[in-house]
Every structure is written in C-alpha cells, then in structure tokens.
C-alpha cells in the first residue's frame, strides 16, 4: 500500500510534464488527459483511504521512503512521504475538489487557445500541493510549498496579456517570498536546534527544547503561514490574485493552497503547544484577519473580490482555531474541508455567472439572475447558506465548533476571541447575503459591454454545472456528516490530539448566539439591499466603506511603509556605500598607489643604487649583531 503514495504525486506530475512539454499536438486532447490524471490521483487517494479505514487508529499512518536527496554526514534530506489521517484529509480534498475543478475548467476554458497549458499548470499545482501535504519532513514540505507558489504565480498571471494580471502575479509572488523566507528560516532554526527536520524527531522532541527557540521557530512558521494563507500583515496579494481564471480562484485561492498555512500550523502543533507566546500571536493574527477580511468583503462590488475577502476571513477562522491548540486543531481542519467545498462551489458559481454575463464582475450590473441561471442559483444559494452557517449545513457545524472552541480557551482571552468570532459570523452573514441579493435578486441592472453587446444570461454547460452540483452536495452534507457522532474528531485525534476545554457557555448557548448573529447579519443586509433597489453606480459611502473598498488601505500602507521605507533605506545604504565603504577602499587604493609611486623612484634601474641599498642593509645587519652582542 505504501508504494501507492508516490503514485498520488506521480500522476499529476506526469500530466504536467506531458502537457507542458507535449506541444501543440496535445491541444485537442490535453484537457482530457489532465483531468484523467487528476481523477486517477483521486482514485488512488480513495484506495488509500479505504485501506486506512480498515486499520486501527494507531497504525493508520503510512510511510514511504523514495530516495535520499542529499545524504551528507550530519545532514540527511530524504524524499520520503508520510500519509496519516491529516494528510489523507488533505489528499482527498485536494484531489477531489481538484478533479471537479478540472472538469469545470473544460467548459470554462473552452474558448481559450492556451487551455492545454492551463491544464498543465493545474496538474503542476496538484502535484506540488500533494507533495506539500504528504511530505514527511519540513524540507520536502518547503519544496512543495515553493511549488504551489510557482503554480499560483503562473495561474494568476495566466492571462498575462492583461497588465493587471501580470502585476497581480508578481505581487502574489513577491508577498509570498516574505512568507517563504519565514519558512526557510524556521527550517534552518529547526536544523540547528534539533539536528534534523523530519516531522517525527522534530515534533517528538519539541517539548524538551528551550521555549525561546520554539517561540522563534513558531513565529517564523506563522510568518510562512501568513504569506501563503493571506493573513494580516501579508494579506494584500489575495484580492489581486482574483485576476486569474475563476477555476484557479476556486481551487488555489479558496479551497486548497491558501489553506496550506493552516496545515503547516496544525502539523507543527507540537511546537506551538510548547510555545504559548507564539500561539498567542497566531490567535491574534487569526482574529484580526477574520474581521479584516470580513470588512473588505462587505465593501467590494467585484463578486470575486468579495469572495476573496470572505476567503481571507474564513481562513482567519481556521488560523484562530489552529492557534487555540488542541482545542481547535481538529475544528480548523474541519472548517478547512467544509470551506473547501462551499467556497469552491461559490467561486464556481461566480465563474458561471461571469460566463453568462460576458465576463462582467461588477455585482451592481447583475440583478435578478435567478430566473436565467437556475442551477447556478441553487448551487450558489446552497453554498451561501453553508458559509453563513445556516443550521444543518456544513458551515454551521464547523464554524459553530470554532466559536465554541474560542470560548473554551477560557479567561478574558476566550471571551474576546469568542466575541470576535461571533461578530465575524454576523458580518459573514451580512456580506454573503449582500452578494446573494445583488446577484440573483432585485431588478435587472445589465448594461451592454464596451463593444455594445447586450448580455444574454444563460445557464452554463453541463461540464460546469456538474462540479457545482457535486460541491453543493458537499456544502450541504459534509458538515453534518463530520460532526454527527464526532466522526471527524475521532478521525484526526490520533494525529493532532484533542482537548474539550472548559467553555464558560454551554454548547446550546453558543449555537443560539451564532444563530442570532446570523439572523442579525442577514436582516441588516436585507434591509440595505433587499428592500431598496441597488444603485448601479456605487454611492460614496462612509469612511469605513471607502477604506474597505481600497482593501482597508493595505496597499497604501505597504507603499508608504515598505516601498518608501525601502527606498530610503536603500538610498542611505547607497550613500554609506559610496562615502564610507568606497571611501575606505578608494582611500586605501589611492594611498597604496601614492606610496608605490614614491617607492617606484627607488627602483631606478641603476645597479649602483641597488648596491647602496644592499650595502646599507649589510651595515644594518652588522649594527644589529653588535647591538645584540652588546646587550
């Protein structure tokens, strides 16, 4: 069974290689090949999953050692895989959602002449993401981490003829570099601390190491997670990343890659458990991002950017849960999985809407689409109900658990975190209701596009609707399936550990509060966007609204603090280099040159001058000898 693990990665990797190197002759069949290989990976995942279910909880983890990558004395880098319950969850999510989105893309990218390349990149992403989640050491994880960064860069900038897309790709890549630096520093710290970076030894001996080192490692890992998962302060790239094709937004920037940070923190749980300071920072980052993303999501008129803000906010929930320690790890992963379903479904729905509306993304120009796109409306609606936490749907179970866990953290901290999470739930309900109302309800507000074509909204082809339907099923039932009978908790507990915590509130109270928050959010949104017609041109709005439209001034902040600051720093360094360093170097050179010029006169080529110096030297030697004898 272990030997199948490599096959998980090999299938999409083969697809990427064939599609990217195969050239034009694969243009007609390439997308089928890519989809088939993604599906093959999913099937392998399923086989491994059924095999795993047949075993006892303790021996479910599988290991496969492929080869030694860098075997050096005292430094062992292996290409080795580890498939435990946590990895298995991710494998199924990645390959499952990935396969659905491959199928969706067949229809979505039908008219794009570079479709083969698109599928190649998608397969490359799948391979890298799978390496990331099944690696058995941090170095290989880092390899996959960079691989998904590369795939993300390529796919955001897929329509590179648009300057905005090219810029967004560059931005995503650069911001991700900051996080990657954190991960590489964390790995180096691990190596100096533990002498290895394999998960097993590092995590087992984490408890016996000094807290300072663990805090440093934890903060660096958090930095990495912030970069990849678009958490404050490295969140600015995610909104712009929506320039990529919608399937990419669904797969990479909603369901899988952006959750890699959560995976990293949960995987490194042992380190964070032993470093409460780092854990506190994780929680703060999660809580801040949760509100930040929600506020941004409220103000955006671009449907994909509104969803991107929502993604940021939902991942904030996960990070918050992951920062709670064993109380929250499992619920972070659970929310991650259900979020993978409903957010992918929402993005695919948004893509379907755009597909029918001449690629229009401004929600103010939608309206009343429910009659024209019934399947999209229903699937999107189910996703909507799931994300706002409508009782009985996926989001309800996972989010409710996170809010409970936040309260269960205990003390003032627990109250603050719980309140923030509840507030987030209300805002989530508000902005998602706003999206829903603006898109599918109200009057038609369509306008001809720049070339004068009146949009003719229509339902999308079947290759697009089927994945949406499947994901809608997941959005509805996954949460209940996981939560009832604590299935998910039992499944992951051997890997991450679990702790009930002591909630000051009963579960029913929390659930009630969540439902109240939900109702309040939906009610406000209905009052603002359901009862009155939505203006086609956005009103000026309050200061907060305007700031939120500009992503809460994150780019301005980055520009002022980082770009300007960097420029000033560079200028001063250049000045120091020119005046001080060059001064020393040039001064040395000049003095050596001047001295040599003077010394050169001694070398006049006349034998007699040399004889004088020789004779003088002999005299000095005699003088020295006599002096030594005298002394």
């Amino acid at each position, binding site marked *: 069974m272990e030997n199948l693990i490599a096959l998980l990665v090999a299938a999409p990797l083969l697809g990427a290689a064939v599609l990217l190197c195969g050239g034009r002759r694969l243009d007609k069949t390439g997308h089928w090949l890519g989809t088939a290989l993604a599906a093959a990976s999913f099937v392998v995942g399923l086989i491994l999953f059924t095999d795993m279910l047949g075993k006892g909880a303790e021996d479910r983890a599988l290991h496969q050692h492929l080869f030694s990558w860098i075997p050096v004395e005292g430094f062992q880098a292996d290409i080795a895989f580890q498939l435990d319950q946590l990895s298995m969850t991710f494998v199924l999510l990645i390959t499952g959602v990935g396969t659905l989105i491959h199928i969706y893309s067949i229809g979505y990218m039908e008219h794009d002449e570079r479709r083969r390349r698109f599928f190649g990149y998608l397969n490359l992403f799948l391979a890298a993401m799978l390496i990331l989640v099944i690696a058995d050491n941090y170095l290989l994880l880092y390899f996959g981490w960079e691989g998904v960064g590369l795939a993300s860069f390529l796919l955001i900038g897929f329509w590179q003829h648009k300057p905005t897309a090219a810029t967004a790709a560059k931005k995503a890549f650069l911001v991700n570099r900051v996080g990657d630096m954190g991960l590489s520093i964390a790995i180096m710290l691990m190596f100096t601390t533990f002498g290895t970076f394999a998960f097993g030894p590092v995590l087992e001996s984490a408890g016996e190491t000094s807290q300072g080192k663990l805090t440093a490692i934890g903060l660096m890992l958090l930095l990495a997670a912030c970069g990849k998962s678009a958490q404050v302060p490295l969140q600015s790239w995610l909104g712009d990343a929506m320039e990529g094709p919608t399937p990419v937004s669904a797969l990479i920037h909603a369901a899988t890659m952006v959750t890699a940070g959560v995976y990293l923190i949960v995987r490194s749980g042992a380190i964070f458990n032993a470093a409460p300071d780092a854990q506190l920072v994780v929680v703060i980052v999660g809580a801040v991002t949760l509100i930040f993303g929600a506020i941004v999501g409220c103000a955006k008129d671009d449907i994909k950017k509104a969803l991107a803000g929502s993604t940021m906010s939902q991942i904030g929930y996960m990070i918050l849960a992951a920062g709670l320690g064993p109380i929250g790890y499992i619920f972070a992963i659970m929310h991650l999985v259900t979020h993978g379903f409903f957010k992918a479904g929402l993005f695919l729905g948004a893509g379907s809407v755009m597909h029918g509306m001449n690629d229009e993304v401004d929600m103010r120009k939608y309206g009343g689409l429910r009659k024209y796109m019934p399947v999209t409306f229903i699937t999107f609606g189910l996703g909507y109900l799931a994300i706002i936490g409508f009782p009985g749907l996926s989001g309800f179970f996972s989010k409710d658990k996170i809010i409970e866990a936040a309260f269960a953290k205990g003390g003032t901290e627990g109250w603050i975190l719980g309140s923030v999470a509840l507030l987030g739930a209300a805002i989530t309900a508000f902005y998602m209701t706003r999206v829903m109302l603006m898109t599918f309800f109200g009057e038609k507000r369509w306008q001809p596009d720049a070339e004068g074509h009146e949009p003719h909204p229509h339902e999308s082809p079947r290759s697009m609707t089927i994945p949406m339907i499947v994901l809608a099923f997941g959005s509805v039932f996954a949460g209940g399936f996981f939560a009832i009978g604590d299935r998910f908790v039992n499944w992951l507990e051997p890997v991450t550990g679990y702790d009930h915590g002591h909630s000051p509130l009963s579960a029913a109270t929390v659930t009630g509060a969540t439902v109240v928050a939900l109702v309040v959010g939906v009610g406000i949104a209905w009052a603002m966007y359901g009862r009155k017609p939505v203006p086609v041109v956005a009103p000026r709005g309050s200061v907060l609204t305007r700031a939120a439209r500009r992503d809460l001034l994150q780019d301005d902040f980055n520009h002022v603090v980082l770009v300007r600051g960097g420029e000033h720093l560079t200028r001063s360094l250049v000045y120091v280099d020119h005046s001080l360093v060059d001064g020393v170097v040039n001064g040395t050179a000049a003095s050596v040159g001047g001295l040599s010029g003077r010394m050169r006169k001694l070398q*006049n080529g*006349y034998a*007699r*001058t040399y004889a*004088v110096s020789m*004779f*003088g030297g*002999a*005299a000095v030697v*005699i*003088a020295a*000898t*006599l002096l030594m*004898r*005298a002394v």
Partner: protein
Amino acid sequence: MNALAAATTTSTGEAVQFWVLGIVAVIGALSTVLLKKAVHSALSLAGTMIILAVFYLANGAYFLGVVQVIVYTGAIMMLFLFVVMLVGVTAEDSLKETLKGQRWLAAGCSLGFGILLIAGIGNASLSTFNGLGAANARHGGNVEGLANLIFTKYVFAFEITGALLITASVGAMVLTHRERTERAKNQRELAEQRVREGKHLPPLPAPGVYARHNAVDIPGLLPDGTPSELTVMQTLRKRGQIRDVSQESLADLKALEQRSGERLGREDADAVTRGAGPASAAENSEAAQ
C-alpha cells in the same frame, strides 16, 4: 717567522713593515678608487695586492703569498689591463657623479660600515695569537700542510672549485666569442649603405697636419677657421685629448704678418701688432718644444 708563535706582539721588524706597507696599501686602495684613468687604477691595485702578498708572508701564509703574486698580480691584473686596452678609454672615466645623492649615500654607507667593522673587531676579545708554527710544522711546512688539508678535509670543495674554473673558462669563451652568421659586406655594399644613410659620403677628412709635431691630435680647420672634430680619431675625441690649435694658427698668422711687415718696413703694421707680439712668440716657442 716561527718566532711569532704564541705571541700577542710581533717583532719590531714586522711592526715597521706593517706601518710602512700598510700606509702604502691604503694609499694604493684609495688611488684605485679615486684615480681617473682605469689604467692608473689597475696599477694602484696591483701595488696594493703585492703589499698584501707581503702581509700574507708576514702572517705565515707562504703559499698564499706566492699565489697572490702569481695569480692576482700576475694573471688577474694583466687580464684587467688587457680588457682596459680592449674596451679603450672613454668619457665614463670621469669621476663626476650622475646619480642624485649617490655619492653621499655611498660615503655614508662605507664610513658607517667601516666604523662598525672596526668597532666590532675592537670589541672582540682577540688577545691571544697562537701563531702558525705548530700548524706549519705538523706536515713539514706550510705548503705540505695546505696540501694535506685540500686533499683530505676540503677535497670536495677542491673538486667543485675545479669544475667551477672549467665552467668559468668555457663561459668566458661563450660570452666573448662571436660566430659570424652573415657574409661580411664588401666595399661596394658599404659604399651603397653610406649613400643610403646619407650621413657622410666621402672618407673622413684627415687631421690638420703640421710638421712641428705628431699632428694626429690636431683637428683640421674648416674654412672659417673653426676646428672640425671629425678629423680626429675617436679614441682621442673620447679622451678629450684634442689639441685646439685654431687660436694658435691665428697667432702664428699674426706673427708671420708682423715679421713680414718688419722686413718690408711697414710702420703701421708694426704699431698694430706690437701688443700681441710677445704672447705669440711665447706660444710659438712652447709649440716648438
């Protein structure tokens, strides 16, 4: 000289000899350095070396004393003289210093060095002199003693020195011998070359000829009365031994005119040349000697 053995003082005879000859030797050395002409330097050096040979003998080194005379003064100095003749005497003999500060540096270094050496010797405790009597007598004489050492203790050094001598003689031959690699130019070719270079086509002019002396060192006069150096041989030119007779001939001409004027009874000519007369006569008499 066996009487010197194991004594810190020498006989009065040797002392007298040392002070007299030592002073001469220092004078010889100084004139080697200071005399202008290489030949004089060589002769002074030869004198110094002979005196050193005497000192060797006085010190009981009979063999070395003889070798010094034969090899140094006899062979090496003659070699020097040959080379001086070969190279000829040039203007480089002048003692005028061309390098800036060289003379002061040299003087400073030499003085310092000499003072240091002498101070060193003075400092050293050289009170006892064993003398060579015993050493010379051990093998029946100075020459036998040296021979015994050379062929036993120093036999390798001796052999190597022999090899060095042979190498040196071969090297000297290699350095000085020049194989002619091209045909010598014949007269026509030389003439053509001279025309091509355009420097001086006809043969060099002869020196001015006066019956009164050798005349090789007297340049011929150009039509305006100035001497032409081209007419004098190169060696004399380099030595600066050209005898300038231009003024002399003018004075001679005046004297001739005066005498002919006297004979012809020209009063005015007599009055004009009276002041220059005696001087010209004196020069004439000097030239005639």
